[in-house]
Every structure is written in C-alpha cells, then in structure tokens.
C-alpha cells in the first residue's frame, strides 16, 4: 500500500489536537472546540485516503504492517511499535472517525453553555487517538496502550461534570470495573509471553491458527477466558456489566460515541481479532457465546423496566453487544456478522443517543420518560431521525438492523447438539424483547399525551435543536436506514472482511431461513404492538406503578449492584481492613521496633563519640587490636 506510511498520523492527529487543547489551556477556550472538530475530521480524511487505496488492491494484499520502530527490547521480549492495516482495522477507523466527527460537531452546540467545553473536546480527541491506537495496533501490548487510553478517556468524560458527586462516583465505578477486565488482558499477555514468547498478533494468532503446537489445552483455555474477561470489562458484558448504566452520568455525546458506538465494542474487536486463539480453545469459545447470550437477555430485560431514557439506551447497548459477543463466540461463521452488527449498531445507537440528547436539550435535561410524551409534533426532525434508528434496532426490513441482526440469529441456529437451540432461541427472544422496550421508549417519548408541566418557572419549552445538532442526527439516521442494505449487497461486507477473518463455507441453520425471518418478524411485531398498546394507546402514569417482582428487580438492574457489593465489595473491604490491622499491629510494629532498636544502638555509638582525643586514639588502637584478633582467629580459615 502506498498510503501505509500515513497510519501513524491516524493516531498522531487527534493526539496533537488533545495536546494543543490541554497544554494551551484557557487561551484556546474561544476556538478550541473547532481544533477538536478539525483534528477528528482530518483523521477521517486520512483514514478515507487509506481506505480508497485499500479498495484498489487485490483482497489478499490488503493486510499490511507498518512498523514505526522498536518499542521494547528487553532480553527475549521484543515489541515493535507497529500498526496493522487490514480491512478489519480500517473498518473501525472509518466507524470511529466518521461517527466521532459527527459527534464532535454535535457537541459544539450541545456543550456550548459549558465553561469547560475546551477540556471536553480535548478528552474527546484523546479518546479518538486511543481508540485508533487500540484498533490499529499490531500487538497485544500496543493494543493495551490504546485499551488503557480509552479507559482513561472514558473515566474523564463520565466524570466530566465532577462537581456532582454522583458523576464522579460513576466515573470511578466504570474505571474500577474496567480495571478488573484490564487485569484479564494483562494476564492473557503474560500467558502468551510464557507460551509463545511474544505478544504480537502475527506470532500469537499465527501459532494459534496452527493449533498452537507446544501449548497445552489448559493454557489456551486460560488465555481465551482472560481475553473474554478483558472484553467483558470493556464491553460491559455479564458479569462486569454494572458500570455502563451509571456511565450515562457523562454528557450525552459521550454516551453516544464512547458508551454506544465505539469504545464498548472494543471487546468484540478484541475477540474477533483473537479469533484463532479462541478456536484453539473451544471451551473458552463456548463461554464467550454463553456470556453473549446471557448479556443480551439481561440487557433486554433491564431495558424494559427503565424510565430513564439514557439508561434504557444503555441497557439496549449492553444487549446489542451481547448479540455481537454471541456471534463472536460462534466461531468463524459469526465473526463477520459480529462486526457487521457492530457497524450498523454504531450508527443507529449513536443516532438514538444523539436523539435522546436532543430531547433532553428540549426538555431541560430531564431524562425521565414518564415526564415526556407527545413530543412528536414539537420535535419533528428528532422524531423522524430517532424513528429511523428505532426501526433499525427493531430489525424491520429494509433498515440496517434487519440485515445484521438477522444474520446473527441465523448463525446462532447453526451447529449441532443443544447449542443452536439454546443460542438461537435466546437470540430470537432477545429480538422480541428489544422490539418491546425500544418501542416503549419511542412511544413514551413521542406519542401519547404530554406529561410535563407546561407552565411554571421551570417548565420546559420544547423546541428543535440547533442545526449543528440536527445535521449529525440526520446523517446518522440515513446510515441507520440504508447502511445495512448497502453493506449487504452481494455479501460485500462479509467478503471485505475475509482477508482477516477467513472464508467460511455456508452452513445451514437447524431451522429453514425463511422460518427464522418470519419468526423474528412476528416476535418484533408482537413486541412493538404490546408497547403500542401500553404506552401509546393508554395513559402512562408519571410515577412508576407498583409491579411484580421481576419488574422491580429489572428496575434495579436485576440487583447487579447488590450482588457485586455482597460478593466482592464487602469481602474486599473486610480483607483490606484485616490487612490494615495486621499491617499496623505486625508489620509496622516490627519495623518501628527495628527503627527504635537502631536509634538506641545509635545513641550507644554516640556516647563513644565523647569529644576527647584520648578516647578517640584509644578507640583507634582498640579497633586495630580487634581487627588483629579477628584476623588471627580466622587466619587460615578464609582464603
């Protein structure tokens, strides 16, 4: 590739933007946000040039490396700072920079009243840089740098309004839970280093693709599970899902970019990239699929009970990533569809979040859907753009979600034994629940009667957002509507990814394809109709009504925090208390005793330093005598 040398600029450009904004400080307050937009847009252009170059090449030549230099050279460990340019990484580059630039533009208006807008854009640029480093890395170690970088940016942006304690706590929660996953990636790298002696993709994945000669099955399973742990942390998958809902404390553009479209999908990227590693450990691969299936149902159930529009979308994100995870756990047959759904989801979920931001903008930052209603006439553009996103996530043909989600459901029904039935019906059921809760969101917000106070000093005056916010929503809505169809023409996207994920023979699902599509559509229509009856046809109470146990549980995220607190937090606190106690009573006391002993000994020695020359001379002579005696005693025994 002629444009290969541009690869470092993909990371350098947004880094430069972040550096300018952070280092120049308040001086750039007035125009800094445009620097952020420009950096992101320029990165997109660089990526586009590289993509067009890649289009002009034969598929088998599209995988290329660009090495900047040696990063670590320590004994047996040698890691280059290298970039992997292939269809998979370029797909992510396009998603991150395109959606990222739109959200930068949106944020210019959304954050216009914020005194710290410049800092916000600095963090956004930092995020883009880290995310691109993550997807462009050609070794796990370089990937890890980006991995930590997006974690940092996520932490900074969730807690962006840290003057409110709850936001700061949410940022910390996300950071801590992500660290649990990060440990998984670290351990995975250590295992790779011990097993393969390297952490670059070429060696590790290459060896795994040949069945990992020399590595025991147990080690491969361990590596696979550790990679899964990392993915669970970053992608908010069961059991590390609890941070995503709280992460909605960040500004809405952040939720759209980081906690819907890009960062949370990094786990899926990691697993698809490491595909051969998981294939070498089928048991770990099965766990991936199980985690995906559990999470997709978990998120969908939670989504049904939430009244907070952003938290509903967060639960939906979790559920949709569950689909991708399930696909990634199905093996080569699912990889392309996982990425396919990741792309379409990136568009429609970002669009939905931006729409939610627009609604919040209109409603004075209210997020309670029970206080919305009847907004369709007041916010027509938002209604239409969100409507397109809604149809896309439901999987209604011919919108984007139909092509991507249906493929995953289809793939879930492939295979032998109990698996296709369990995974297939989980995916099918998830589609129905998704239709229900997304329709619930849509109808509660836009249909029915208005449920907000129309007079009084704090009453909102709903109005359409400014153009800088509206246009990104329109562009994303167009993507939500047409991207799936465009990418699906002639299986184009699947073939595009083949140089990376490999070609797979077509398998037949255990049920005929037409039946699956029909079943899916029936469930979707049923779900949507139920929501229509409950939330559009009848009045919605403004306070959550009393409900049965499952709803109550779903309202508190199926008690995820209680479980975490009981299983991890409290035992952890007891452990640290015990450690502090033993540290004080045993370790500190020991050291203090030693220090006191040294002090007392020092005082003894000090008394020898009397100041009298006669004593000094005597000590000199006495010391010499001692040495002479020691030498005489030990003479002949040391040599």
């Amino acid at each position, binding site marked *: 590739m002629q444009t290969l040398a541009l690869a470092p600029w993909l990371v350098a450009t947004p880094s430069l933007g972040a550096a300018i904004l952070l280092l120049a400080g308040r001086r750039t307050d007035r125009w800094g946000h445009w620097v952020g937009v420009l950096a992101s847009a320029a990165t997109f252009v660089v990526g586009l040039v590289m993509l067009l170059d890649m289009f002009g090449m034969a598929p088998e030549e599209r995988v290329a490396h660009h090495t900047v230099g040696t990063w670590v050279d320590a004994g047996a460990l040698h890691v280059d700072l290298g970039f992997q340019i292939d269809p998979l990484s370029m797909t992510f580059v396009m998603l991150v920079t395109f959606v990222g630039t739109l959200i930068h533009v949106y944020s210019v208006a959304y954050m216009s009243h914020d005194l710290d807008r410049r800092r916000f854009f600095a963090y956004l640029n930092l995020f883009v840089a880290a995310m691109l480093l993550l997807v462009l890395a050609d070794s796990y170690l370089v990937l890890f740098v980006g991995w930590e970088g997006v974690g940092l940016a996520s932490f900074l942006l969730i807690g962006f309004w840290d003057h409110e304690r709850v936001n700061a706590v949410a940022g910390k929660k996300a950071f801590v839970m992500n660290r649990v996953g990060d440990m998984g990636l670290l351990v995975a790298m250590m295992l790779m280093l011990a097993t393969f002696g390297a952490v670059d993709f070429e060696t590790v994945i290459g060896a795994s693709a040949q069945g990992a000669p020399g590595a025991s099955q147990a080690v491969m399973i361990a590596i696979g599970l550790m990679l899964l742990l990392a993915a669970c942390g970053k992608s908010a998958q069961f059991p590390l899902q609890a941070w995503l809902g709280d992460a909605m404390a960040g500004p809405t553009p952040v939720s759209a970019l980081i906690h819907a479209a890009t960062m949370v999908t990094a786990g899926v990227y990691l697993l698809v990239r490491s595909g051969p590693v998981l294939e070498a450990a089928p048991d770990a691969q099965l766990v991936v699929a199980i985690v995906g299936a559990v999470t997709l149902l978990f998120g969908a159930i939670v989504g049904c009970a939430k009244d907070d529009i952003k938290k509903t979308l967060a639960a939906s994100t979790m559920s949709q990533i569950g689909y991708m995870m399930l696909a990634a756990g199905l093996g080569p047959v699912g990889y392309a569809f996982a990425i396919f759904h990741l792309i379409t989801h990136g568009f429609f979920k970002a669009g939905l979040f931006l729409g939610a931001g627009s609604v919040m903008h209109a409603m004075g930052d209210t997020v309670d859907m029970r206080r919305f209603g009847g907004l369709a006439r007041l916010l027509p553009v938002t209604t239409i753009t969100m409507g397109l996103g809604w149809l896309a996530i439901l999987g209604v043909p011919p919108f984007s979600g139909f092509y991507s989600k249906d493929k995953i459901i289809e793939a879930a029904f492939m295979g032998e034994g109990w698996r296709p039935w369990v995974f297939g019906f989980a995916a099918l059921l998830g589609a129905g629940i998704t239709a229900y809760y997304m329709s619930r969101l849509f109808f509660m917000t836009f249909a029915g009667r208005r449920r907000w106070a129309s007079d009084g000093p704090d009453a909102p005056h709903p109005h359409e957002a400014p153009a800088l916010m509206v246009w990104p929503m329109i562009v994303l809505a167009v993507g939500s509507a047409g991207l799936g169809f465009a990418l699906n023409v002639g299986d184009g996207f699947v073939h595009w990814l083949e140089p990376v994920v490999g070609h797979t023979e077509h398998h037949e699902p255990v049920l005929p394809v037409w039946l699956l599509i029909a079943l899916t559509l029936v469930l979707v229509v049923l779900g949507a109709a139920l929501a229509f009856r409950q939330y559009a046809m009848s009045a919605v109470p403004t306070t959550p009504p009393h409900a049965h146990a499952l709803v109550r549980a779903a309202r508190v995220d199926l008690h995820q925090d209680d479980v975490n607190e009981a299983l991890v937090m409290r035992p952890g606190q007891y452990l640290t208390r015990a450690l502090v106690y033993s540290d004080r009573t045993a370790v500190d006391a020991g050291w203090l005793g030693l*220090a*006191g002993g*040294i*002090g007392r*000994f*020092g*005082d003894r*020695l*000090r008394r*020898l*330093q*009397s*100041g*009298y*020359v006669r*004593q*000094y*001379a005597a*000590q*000199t002579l*006495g*010391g*010499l005598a*001692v*040495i*002479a005696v*020691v*030498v005489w005693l*030990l*003479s*002949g*025994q*040391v*040599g």
Partner: protein
Amino acid sequence: MNDGFIAPEIDWAVVAPVLVVLGAGVLGVLVEAFVPARARRVTQILLTLAALAGSLVAVVLLWPRVLRDGFAFIVDGTYLLTPFTLGVQAVVAVLAIPGVLVIADRTSSGEDAFAPTAAAVPGTAYEDAARQAGLQQTEIYPLVLFATGGMLLFPATDNLIVLFIALEVLSLPLYVLCATARRRRLLSQEAAFKYFLLGSFASALMLFGIALVYGFAGTVSLETVVLVLQHPELSPLGTMPGLVLTGVLLVLVGLLFKVGAAPFHTWTPDVYQGAPTPVTGFMAACTKAAAVGALVRVLFTLAAGFDDALRGDIVVALWVVAILTMLVGTVAGAVQTDVKRLLAYSSIAHAGFLVVGLVGFSELGARAVVFYLLAYGLATIGAFAVVTLVREQDASGVVLGEATRLAQWAGLGRKAPWLTAAFALFLLSMAGIPLTAGFLAKFGVFQAAVDAGAWPLAVLGVLASAVAVFFYVRVIVLMVLTPPADERAAPEAAGAAAPGAAGAAVRPVEGGGGTAAGVVTAARTAVARATVVVVGSRGPAALAIALCALGVLLVGLLPASVLDLAGEAAKFRP
C-alpha cells in the same frame, strides 16, 4: 664516590598534573607577599582555579599515552602513573574545582567562611579590629593548592616513603584549614587540633607499618615487595609473612584513617563539624578520593603477591572494616541532629561502601570505586555548599553563622525551593536512588563484591543503604513537609544569646537522647530564638551547586560515557 651525582632523567610531562598545582601553590605564597591586599583575593582565586584546570588538562593530555603504555613512571617508580591513578587524579581535580568555588563565595552577607586573621585569639579585641578592618585570610588558597597537590601525588607512587610524604603534604594544609573558621572559632580550632593529633597518631602507625614492610622485603617499592612475596628467597626476612601482614595492616590503618573508615573514623564527625563548611566539603570529597586511590594503589598491587593465607587475612581485615564502617555510619547517622554531623556520618557510611568494593582486588572493583568517588564527591561538595547558604539571623537582621541544627531546616522548601531541590537531589544520590549517580555507584561496588564472592558484604551494604535512606529522606521530609519553626513558635526570647556564639561548644557533646523524632522536637523548641534565612550566593557557590546537581543528574541519567571512562581507568597495575 667519584661517580658524583648523576641527575636522573625526568619526563616532566608525567608529573605535570601535580607540578602545576604545587607550583601554583608556591606562586600563591608569593602572591601573598607581593600583590596588594585589594587584588589579592581575586588573584588567588583565579590562580587556584587556573591551576586546577591546568592539572585537569594535563591529566586529559596524559590519558591516551598512559592508556596506550599501561603506565608512566619516573625515577624508579617514585612517581608512577597507571590508568587508575590518572583516573583518581582526574576525579580529584574535577571535584576540587567546585570545592574551590564554594570556598571562594562570600555570599550576600559579604563575608567568607574564614577568620579575618586566623592568628587572632578568638573573642579578643584584636579579632574584632581585624574583622572591622575587613582583613581576610587569603592564604587559604595556596593551602588548598598544597593539599590538592598532595592528593594528586597520594595515589601516584610506587614508593612507600613517597606515599607517606604525600600523606603529610595533603594533611598538614588541611589541619591548618580546619582551624580557620570565621564563626565558632573555638570549635574550629579544637577540630583542627584533634585532627592533627589523631592524624599524627595514624601517620605514626603507618610509618611503623612501612618500616615493617621494609624489614620484610628490604625495599619500599611496592612492585619489588610483590616480587619478594612471590620469591621469598630474595630477602633475608622474606620467609616471615607475619612481618608483612602486620606491616600491611598498619599501612592500611594510615590510609583508612584518611578514608574515614571505622574504627579509624572517630575524628570525622568532630572535624567535619568544626571545620569551615566549604573546607569540609572539599576535604570530604577530595581527600576521600585521594585516600581511596592510594588504598587501591597499595592494596591491589600487593594483592598480586599474596598467597592464599595472606590474602585471606587481609580480606578478613577488610570485611571487619567494611562492616564496622557501614554499621557506624548508618546507625549513628540515624540519630544525628546537626546537618554537618549527619553528612559526616553519611561520609563514613560511604567509606564503608567503598571498602566493600575493594574486597575483590579486581579491575571491576577499581572501576566501581572510581565511579563511586565521582558520584559521591559531586553530591558531597554540593550538599556542603548548600549548608554554607543556610544561616541564622538575629533579631536585628544581622546574618550569623550557619544554621546547622536539623530542626532549623524545617520548611526550607518554602524559603528556597531551588536550593532545597538541589539538596534533596544530593541526598537522594547519596541514598542511591535510581536515576541519580549514587545508584549506579552503589550498584557498581556491590557488583564488584558479589563478583568477588563477598555477597554477604553486598547484602549488608544494601541493608545499610536502607537504613541510610531513612536519615536522608528524613531531612527531605523536614525541608519540604514540615512547616518552618519560626512560623509555629513566636520568637519567645528576643534578647537570648545568639546561638552562634562559639564559647558554648568547646566540647561538642551530642545533646539529648531518645528517638530521632524526639530529638527533633526538642531541638525545635531550642532554636526558636534565631530565625533562619537563606543567604544569596555571590555566584561561585551557586555555580558549584548547579555544576554538582547537573553532574549528579547527568551521570545518573546518561552514565555510559562516565562508566566507559571509569572502565578505562580500571587498570591499576603497570
């Protein structure tokens, strides 16, 4: 005797590093006689610095030649240069330059650290008159040059008599220098007298040792002694190894005394405290470098001739000395309340670490020692230079002597952040924290010890370093985290006697007892009388501190070239 006197052929270039300095010293005496008083000080300083720079240039010019030939000598090894000797000379010259800069600084108080006329009896009207007349003792500079000349000669001989002469040439000017402090003069004179008495005692022991070695081998040339050790039949008493063992041990006493190793260290705290602080810095850095150089010269050369038994005996002696020195330096250092005494014990501890590097008699050890001396010397001169700038001030604003009590250093970080940062850097380097020169230095000597199979010594050294970190970091904590004493306690007794008054400190009993923290608290209340100020440097001392800090950092961060040079200088025998 009709042959008459045959003048030996002397290659003067080989002696140049020493000759330049000693010649300049003689010239400096003439300057005292003939240059008018007003211009004398500047002339002396310039002459001194030029001489040291010239000596350094001579070393640099000799370097390739000595490396190529492996040695250079004149008159049967009366003067003998090996790469190692030249390396030590380079270290001494390099360290002497900032040392002299600190000596030359008069600070913004307008007074240097030296008595206006050293011959005046302390506290007399004559002394007051001399001070008011603005007299100054510029003989300091020739004395420094003579001492430096002795230091340069000390490691550069094969002849034990010349070794002894060099010892005296470097010691006598130092005795005088120690007695010349402007403030606390009784303490200063007492220190000088103690130094002189104990130094004479050690010299006598060393001379006795030389006599015994001569008795054994019939020669005072070290290389010839090695020959006799290898072929005992060459000397009538060559079959009496006890003779040479006793002799060598006694010679070691003389050298270890100068190095400041226990149990011959007793003079160090008192002398370091009493001497004028710039002289202390110069003495602590350069004397130690020269003495360790001489120690290596003697010991490593003789080691070539030792049989296993003799070698084992000497190694045992070195082990005892190293362990005792590290123990005394770190443990007693941990309970000090005076910053100069603290640095003195730190210097003792460093002597211990240096001896650890010697036990293998190897080139690895020689290399480590050269590097160590440079790293230690830079930090030491810098640290004492900082001490010269931290002063007491009485109620009327007159700047008094140095505020050497540790409690007075509390909160220094707020008064002088850069100075505090520099001092912290020097302390961290002495503690051997990575990224400073001191870390690699310590690593080097311990590596040499392990390489020689003396791993228990290295382990003890690491443990001693850990204890030493305590008292270095305690000072940093005091400077940076503790609020200044004058902020906490209002000046309670304005009319109290100035703590700088010398009379009270004739016998420096180390006050108080209890733990270190207790001592600090007790001392805090005691010093609330005078406020602590940081006086500005007139330039030279600041330059010296900056040079030393830069050196410590550069040698720590980019040690490769210095390590290479030290490696070249590791060859210690012709």
